[in-house]
């Protein structure tokens, strides 16, 4: 479960799902990358140097839970789309 390839796969899936967030509320103007993407990148970088197997497992479980949350929220967000704000056009 904790091979390097699995972790990288998880990273990719998380980033892909976060790209689907549409609403302006999830973004920041100058960077135009949403909160989820930035948080994912930062936390993966931070935990890069972890060596303790148990800790790694815990982080993986945390990531999987968040993957589900992001999927759900992106789906809901796209269902109840409020239309583009003037700034975004």
């Amino acid at each position, binding site marked *: 479960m904790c091979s*390097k*390839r699995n972790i*990288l*796969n998880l*990273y*990719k899936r998380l*980033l*892909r799902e976060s790209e689907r967030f549409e609403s302006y509320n999830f973004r920041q103007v100058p960077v135009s990358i949403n909160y989820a993407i930035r948080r994912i*990148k930062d936390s*993966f*970088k931070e935990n*890069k140097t972890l060596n303790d197997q148990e800790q790694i497992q815990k982080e993986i479980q945390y990531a999987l839970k968040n993957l589900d949350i992001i999927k759900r929220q992106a789906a809901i967000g796209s269902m109840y789309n409020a239309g583009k704000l003037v700034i975004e056009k």
Partner: protein
Amino acid sequence: MIKMAALVYGIRNALVRSSNIILSTGCRASVIGIQKSLHTKVLKPKCSSSLLSVKVNPALRRNFAVAKPSLDDVRERVLRVCKEYDKITADKRTRLPIRLYSSKDPMTLELIRDRVLLVLKLYDKIDPKKLSLDSHFINDLGLDSLDHVEVIMAMEDEFGFEIPDADAEKLFKPGDIVRYVADREDVYE
């Protein structure tokens, strides 16, 4: 009584068909008038939307009440169709408005190379001065495996197809990526 009904029916149909001709010659008001009085729907010409630059062949429109075409007419139309026959679009042509769902731009090896290098240059963790086809992402350009994943994702977005992890693991240089994309897109040079 029945004859009267048949007569009325005949006139009605003639009016409907003539409204079709009138429609094709562009007089909408009279068509609407006929429509309303007869409570019928006018048959619209088959291909009325002009979404694409591929022009719709007006000869495909059905005009039900046109007199029989003369020999010259037929000859001209056959010649026109033959002249317009073009192998590339021939089997895509249908009677309905044409939608080209899968038209790709022509890919050459050089184009792939340029696109890959452009994407990499736009990535801010890569120093464009060190970038070349043979520079190794991790050893030469100083990226780590997470950045490598991001690069592969950018390539997926650029070329529009998914790259499975097993393949992505082996792509460590821009040259590898170019070769991989060329293989997937069947570009041989």
